């Protein structure tokens, strides 16, 4: 069954990633009865991102060429018909006319909107060194990227990953497990520095090295030499040459805000939105990776790149657009799986936070509690899911956060799970 296409909709959502798909789903479950259209430049069915650098990458490419069987489809085949969403794969928005509430699509046609929602996500930052255009230098963002990279990984022997962020390290762990010689290069002095405390970052560095990954910290790429059209090494700024038949670039992402910027919306590290997720144009909202929003209570702006941020933004906006929403106030949480490291994070780390470690980094099971101005702000857990669960609970309660001091947490008898239960009963 195909859904009818129209030339207008009450709500038009741009982007069928985690944020856009959850929004159209939640709009219907919140009782929205108007028309909905979903625009997505990529062809094919919408898919889940997290497995792309993990299980999907580690799976056998010959097992199936059907994305449904690869375990990454985001919703079932009847989703759009059941939810009455006008969706045509590959139909993209070229420009936005805010005065006339009209979009121009990539086929030149016009499409009207009552409310417009940007759920455009992020795009990979490009490496701009000589040789970056060579064959064998690839990024990882889309399902197509992941499929191509998984195929290349089968032939590869020497892999260099540029950038020790989450995606780069997840991929590095898979590449190492498949038998490749793997080098990860990182400009900073520890991996995942933007997101993680020194204790957790340094633990991950040691754990990856123990599994045989060469981790070069404080090192940058000078150029990518090639043999004809194909890359064959990575040359570093300090003068090293690392042979490579596959170079994976993971140097972060930038918000996909060009269309919004061209439409004249306020941009501030992505599309700037208020607590109700509205942009500087009250008829336009933005959610997920592309949007920077004010953290409830502090007013500081943040832009997060995570599934939870995308889907919680979507659920909040669905409530707002159906008339019973309140300002976004979810506690951010993230996860990563890198070989044997199961990393779970709740809250947001900032440099200068006071660290208290529970458990044992030596045994690969620990949590780092982070305090700022005497208040618990974030918890990083490695192979300690109980602490992560406790952290989500405690961080969602101001009373609970205030009740815990770094001194209490540093007591050898302190049990975070027990604390979370006692305090939540009291609160």
């Amino acid at each position: 069954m195909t859904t009818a296409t129209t030339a207008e909709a009450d709500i038009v959502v741009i982007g069928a990633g985690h944020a856009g798909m959850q929004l159209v789903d939640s709009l219907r479950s919140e009782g929205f009865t108007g028309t909905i259209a979903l625009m997505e430049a990529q062809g094919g069915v919408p898919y889940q991102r997290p497995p792309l650098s993990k299980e999907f990458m580690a799976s056998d490419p010959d097992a199936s060429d059907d994305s449904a069987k690869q375990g990454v489809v985001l919703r079932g085949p009847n989703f759009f018909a059941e939810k009455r969403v006008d969706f045509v794969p590959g139909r993209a928005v070229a420009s936005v006319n805010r005065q006339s509430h009209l979009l121009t699509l990539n086929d030149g046609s016009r499409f009207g909107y009552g409310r417009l929602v940007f759920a455009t996500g992020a795009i990979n930052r490009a490496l701009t060194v000589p040789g970056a255009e060579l064959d064998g230098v690839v990024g990882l963002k889309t399902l197509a990227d992941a499929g191509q990279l998984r195929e290349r990984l089968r032939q590869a022997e020497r892999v260099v990953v540029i950038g020790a962020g989450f995606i780069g390290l997840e991929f590095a762990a898979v590449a190492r497990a498949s038998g490749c010689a793997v080098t990860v290069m990182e400009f900073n002095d520890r991996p995942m520095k933007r997101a993680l405390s020194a204790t957790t970052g340094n633990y991950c560095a040691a754990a990856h090295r123990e599994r045989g990954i060469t981790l070069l910290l404080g090192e940058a790429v000078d150029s990518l030499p090639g043999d004809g059209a194909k890359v064959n090494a990575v040359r570093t700024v300090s003068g090293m040459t690392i042979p490579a038949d596959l170079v994976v670039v993971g140097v972060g992402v930038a918000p996909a805000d060009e269309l919004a910027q061209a439409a004249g919306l306020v941009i501030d590290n992505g599309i700037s939105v208020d607590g109700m997720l509205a942009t500087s144009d009250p008829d336009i909202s933005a959610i997920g990776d592309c949007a920077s929003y004010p953290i409830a209570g502090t007013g500081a702006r943040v832009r997060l790149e995570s599934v939870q941020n995308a889907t919680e933004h979507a659920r909040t906006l669905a409530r707002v657009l159906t008339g019973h929403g309140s300002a976004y106030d979810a506690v951010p949480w993230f996860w990563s799986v890198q070989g044997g490291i199961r990393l779970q994070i709740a809250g947001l780390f900032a440099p200068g936070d006071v660290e208290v470690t529970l458990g044992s980094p030596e045994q690969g099971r620990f949590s780092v509690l982070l305090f700022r101005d005497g208040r618990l702000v974030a918890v990083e857990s490695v192979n300690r899911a109980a602490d992560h669960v406790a952290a989500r609970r405690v961080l969602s309660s101001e009373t609970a956060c205030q009740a815990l001091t770094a001194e209490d947490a540093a007591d050898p008898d302190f049990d975070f799970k027990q604390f979370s239960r006692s305090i939540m009963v009291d609160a």
Partner: protein
Amino acid sequence: MAKIIYQNAAGLSRTVEQDAPVTVMRAAIENGVDGIVGECGGQAMCATCHIYVDDRYLDALQPIGDDEAEMLDCTAADRDEVRSRLGCQILVGEAGGHLDEIVVTVPSTQV
């Protein structure tokens, strides 16, 4: 052969059958079974594929893992100490496995 029967609190029932082995979470997503979210993609990280296993099938399940046991403490609907599991951790229809069929109840909420 895998057969999964999803029930909800309102008494509605959906049956999913397929040849290849599949988890209770994945089969729900791919077949549009309401009430199972599976936000993390199946890594026992998000606890949004919480289900209650019908008593008859409890003995055939693999023992619960530490991560799954802990994550079940942050489900949106109340945890049942005996029947609650994460759908992503229950594989049905595996060759040589003990579980070709299962009946589960989907909770009223996952988030």
